[in-house]
C-alpha cells in the first residue's frame, strides 16, 4: 500500500505503469483500480499544465464569438442558430484536446508498455478517454450556458443544454479517441484527425442540436435525447475495442 501511494505521487508515466502491472496481489490488478489509476495520473499530469487544459474552453468561446461577428449582433437572429453554433463549437473544441490525448504516451514509450502489459488495452485507453471528457468535455458542459447566453439561449434551457452536451461530448470523446489512436503515429495527423472524426460525429451533432432547439421552443425533447443516449451506449460498448485495435496498429513497429 505504501509503495502504491509513493508511486502515485511521482509523476513519471513508467512508475504508475509499474503500479498498474505490479498489482496489489495476484497478476491481474482489479479493473476499477486500473481505471482510477489511469484517470488520476492523467488528471494530475494535465493539472500541471493548466493552460493546456483551458485551451479547448477558450477555443470554444472564440468560435462561438465568431458567429455574431460574422452574421449579426441581433440576439433574435442569433437565437435561431444558437443551438447549432454551440454544438459545432463543442465539436471543434473537442478536436483540439484530442491531438495530445495519446501522443505524449506514445512518444515516451508508455503506450508500448501498455500494449504489452497484458492488461486490457481497451480499458486503459477508455480510461484516458474518460480523462479527455473530464478535461475537455465537462468544462464545455459547464461553460456552455454562460457562453450560450451570448447567443440568446434562455436560462430555462440551461438544464437541457447541459444534459445534452454532457451526453453528446461523451460520444465526441469516444469517436475522437478512436481517430486519435489511428493517427497518433503519423507526423502531421491533426488535420487528418479532423477529417476522419468530424463526419462520424455528424449524427451526434444533428440530434444534439435538435434537442436544444426543441427545448428553446418549449417542445418535448425525449425523442432525439433518447437517440443521443442510445448512440452514447453504442459507442461506449464498441468504441474501446476500436481504440485498442487502432492503437495496437499504430504502436507496433
Amino acid at each position, binding site marked *: 500500500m505504501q509503495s502504491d501511494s509513493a508511486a502515485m505521487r511521482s509523476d513519471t508515466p513508467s512508475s504508475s505503469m509499474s503500479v498498474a502491472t505490479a498489482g496489489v496481489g495476484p497478476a491481474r490488478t482489479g479493473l476499477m483500480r486500473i481505471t482510477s489509476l489511469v484517470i488520476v495520473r492523467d488528471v494530475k499530469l494535465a493539472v500541471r499544465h493548466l493552460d493546456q487544459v483551458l485551451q479547448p474552453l477558450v477555443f470554444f468561446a472564440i468560435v462561438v464569438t465568431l458567429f455574431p461577428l460574422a452574421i449579426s449582433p441581433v440576439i433574435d437572429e442569433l437565437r435561431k442558430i444558437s443551438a447549432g453554433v454551440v454544438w459545432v463549437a463543442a465539436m471543434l473544441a473537442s478536436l483540439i484536446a484530442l491531438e495530445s490525448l495519446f501522443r505524449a504516451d506514445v512518444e515516451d514509450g508508455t503506450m508500448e508498455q501498455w500494449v504489452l502489459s497484458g492488461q486490457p488495452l481497451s480499458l486503459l485507453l477508455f480510461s484516458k478517454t474518460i480523462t479527455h471528457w473530464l478535461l475537455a468535455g465537462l468544462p464545455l458542459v459547464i461553460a456552455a450556458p454562460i457562453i450560450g447566453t451570448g447567443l440568446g439561449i434562455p436560462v430555462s434551457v440551461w438544464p437541457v443544454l447541459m444534459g445534452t452536451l454532457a451526453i453528446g461530448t461523451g460520444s465526441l470523446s469516444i469517436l475522437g479517441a*478512436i481517430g486519435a489512436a*489511428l*493517427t497518433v503515429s*503519423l507526423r502531421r*495527423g491533426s488535420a*487528418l484527425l479532423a*477529417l*476522419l472524426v*468530424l*463526419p*462520424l460525429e*455528424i*449524427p451526434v451533432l*444533428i*440530434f444534439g442540436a*435538435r434537442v436544444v432547439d426543441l427545448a428553446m421552443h418549449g417542445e418535448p425533447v425525449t425523442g432525439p435525447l433518447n*437517440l443521443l443516449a442510445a*448512440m452514447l451506449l453504442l459507442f461506449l460498448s*464498441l468504441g474501446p475495442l*476500436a481504440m485498442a*485495435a*487502432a492503437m495496437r*496498429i*499504430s504502436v*507496433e513497429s
Partner: protein
Amino acid sequence: MTSNTESEVTAAPRSGSRWLWFHKLSSPPYAFRTAGNLRPWFFWPSLILMAFALYGGLILAPPDYQQKDAFRIIYVHVPSAILSLQVYVVMAVAAAVGLIWRMKLAHALAAAVAPLGAWFTFLCLATGSIYGKPMWGTWWEWEPRLTSELIMLFLYLGFMALRNSFDDLQRADRAAAVLAIVGVVNVPIVKFSVQWWNSLHQGPTFSKLDAPSMTASMAWPWGLMMLAFVLYFAAVTCDRLRSEILRRERNASWLAESLRSR
C-alpha cells in the same frame, strides 16, 4: 517478408474440399490470374448493356408529364448513388476480413475499390446537383440523399487519406481497416439521422431527387443500367485488385511465373 506468405491462408486446406474454394480464392496468385481472366467477361457485357440501357432510357422511354425529359438523368444518377453505398460495404467487409483473418488479399480488395467508390459518390453528387438545377432552381439543396452522399464522400476521402499517410503498406491496410469498420457501423446512423433531420425541416412533400413513379418503359432501362454499372465496376476492380496484389507481393516466386506467362 517471405514469412508473410507462410502466415497467409494458403496452407494446406482443411478437411475435405468444402474449404478448398476459399483457400484457392484467398491465394494471391490464383486471384491475380482469375481477375485477369474475368475482366473481359465483366467489361464487354457491361458496355453492351449500357448501350441498350441508353437506347431505352434516352430514346424509347417517353418524357415524363412533370419533369419532361429531365428525369433521364436518373439513369446515371441513381446507379451511381447505389454503387457508392455498396462499394463502401464491400470495402468495409473486405477490410474486416483482412483484419480478422490477416488476409493480404482482402486488404488488397479494400484498397482496390476505395477510389472507385469515391468516384461513384462524386458522380452521384455532380449529377444530382445538375439534376437539381432545373428541378429546384438551385445548384444545391440539402436534401437527404445528396447530404448523406456528401458525408459518404468524406468517409471515402478519410479512408484513402489515412491509408496514404502510412509509409508501411501493412500498417496502412490495418489502420484503414479499423477506420472502415468504424465507418460502416456509422453509415446507417448517419443516413438515418440525415433523413430525420431533413424530414423535420423540409416536410414530406418536398420533392426528393427521385424519378416520378415509373412506368415499365421507364423502369427497364434503369435496371439494365444498374447491372451495367455493377459489371463495369467489377471489371475495373479486376485491374485495380491485380495492381494491389502486385504491390503487396514483393518476393513471391509465383510472380516470375505469372508474369512470364502473360
